[in-house]
């Protein structure tokens, strides 16, 4: 199924070559090994999920991808080149956008301003030019604003554009966070439990948005999720982690039949 040219999914979408590859990633905090020797790849245009029980190391893995953690051993390859150790903001500028499990928004700012910060990676005008509201900076601001309005439209949050984020309910905050990440027009979008704490209806909405994003913008998505049903419906390929190790990798159907995976989820003693 896999080759350097990519593959075609069950619903007929063409998946491209490898966009990001994790090679033998190990992450230790002192004596604790959060991730041990995990390798997998993310291909252009696909929805890739990382699943696993609590404490499996999923969030740590996402933090490695987004540069918040530096792996103890192993390499991250991105767009065909090995990525040197980087600060999170540098990773962000390379086109990796993310959301957080516990929502990290700028609570004091309006929805519009929050989403606008997503455009920071596309900011070229110098600081003095911005301070003086001078030609190019101004044009850039207008252009950013236009892109942001599109995203806001797409995620159906027009009605709350001017509302301070602190006042919004949980489900909407999650959507604003997604909007901010999307505004960056990322090459790869990392979602850390996008549906955690949501009710069924909100989950359905979010699933639809994730599929639409992938479909409409062709954005590559790598997500962590607890809800097995949702994951299996959404993703093209799934990595399964347990106790920091990779125990399965493949299409949802392949993973579902994997005995290790079943054991991990049903809680067979280790």
């Amino acid at each position, binding site marked *: 199924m896999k080759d350097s040219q990519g593959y075609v999914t069950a619903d007929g979408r063409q998946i491209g070559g490898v966009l990001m590859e994790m090679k033998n990633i190990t992450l230790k905090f002192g004596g604790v090994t959060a991730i041990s020797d995990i390798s997998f790849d993310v291909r252009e245009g696909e929805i890739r999920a990382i699943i696993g029980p609590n404490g499996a190391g999923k969030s740590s893995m996402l933090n490695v991808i987004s540069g*918040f953690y530096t792996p103890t051993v192993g390499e991250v390859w991105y767009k065909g080149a090995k990525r040197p150790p980087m600060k999170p903001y540098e990773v962000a500028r390379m086109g990796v956008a993310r959301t957080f499990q516990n929502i*990290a928004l*700028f609570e*004091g700012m309006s929805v519009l301003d*929050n989403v606008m*910060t*997503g455009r*920071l990676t596309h900011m070229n005008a110098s600081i003095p030019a*911005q301070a003086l509201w001078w030609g190019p900076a101004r044009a850039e601001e207008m252009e950013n604003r236009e892109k942001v309005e599109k995203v806001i439209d797409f995620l159906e949050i027009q009605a709350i554009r001017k509302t301070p984020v602190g006042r919004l309910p949980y489900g909407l905050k999650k959507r604003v966070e997604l909007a*901010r990440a999307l505004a960056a027009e990322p090459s790869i979008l990392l979602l850390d439990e996008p549906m955690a704490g949501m009710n069924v209806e909100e989950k359905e909405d979010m699933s639809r948005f994730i599929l639409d994003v992938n479909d409409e913008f062709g954005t590559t998505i790598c997500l962590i999720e607890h809800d097995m049903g949702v994951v299996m419906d959404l993703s093209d390929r799934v990595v399964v982690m347990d106790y920091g190790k990779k125990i399965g990798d493949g299409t949802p159907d392949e993973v579902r039949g994997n005995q290790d995976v079943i054991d991990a989820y049903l809680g067979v003693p280790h």
Partner: protein
Amino acid sequence: MDLLNQIFIAPFVDMVAAPDFLLQVLWEGLVSGVLYALIALGFVLIYRSSRIFNFAQGIMVVFAALTLVGLHAMGIPAWISVILTLGVMFVLAVSIERIVLRPLVGQPDIILFMATIGITLFLIGLGEIIFGGENKQMISAELGIPTGDTVLEPWGGLLILQHLDITVVGVAVVLVGALLAFLNYTQMGRAIRALGDDHQAALSVGISLQTIWVLVWFIAGIIALVTGIAWGARAGVSFALEVIAYKALPVLMLGGLESITGAIIGGLMIGLSEKLFEIYWGQPILGGNTETWFAFVLALIVLLFRPQGLFGERIIERV
């Protein structure tokens, strides 16, 4: 009875009897209020973007003023000295970020606060070594700050507006306006506000802590220079100027450390109320000199009822 009369009746009778004098008092209150607001803004900016209470803001005012005067004394034309001083403040911002803040990232707030006390002591020492400790004249004339005054005669009375004060108010209003526009309508301004709200999220959208910190400390430096010029022109340039920074403390208590609007309104409120109190209550009843403490008492009273300040973030803990 007499005391009650002095507190509740006599001051208002005086105000109505001499409205021109009341205007004069209000004008002077406004001028110092604008300057308090300006200094408080320096504090708020740094606090918002890094949660550091910058104890060094006062000494930065002195240092900027000293540098300007010192450079001019070396024979450099006044306006070029201003530009060079801005350069010095930029270098200072970069050094503070590099040497002090960066190694302390993630430390508790109190440690960063102590570090700013260290910066204060360092700048006092450095300032004395380079420029000496004696009092100096601000180069107001060379900078083209007008002297003299305009006399108005409202209701047949007398209202004297110093041209220096008019200039100070004008410049401060422009500076504050520009700053607000920068913070609200540019990507960099948004990044500054964002960083104060959530570091992690800020990193994830590509905001560099270092760049923003340098920028914010540089803006605080610009504010310090403007305040230094304005205050130095009235009171001379000496290390005693540092004390005006402490005048910003009650402003911050009133306005809240996070709020830019709060700093502006708080500054004006304190400037106006301390002047009014001094003239109409302090001098007749308490023998004057109330301006040194009135602001603190006012802030204390506000804090009793609103611990977060008038405009501060209300801290809601959701469980």
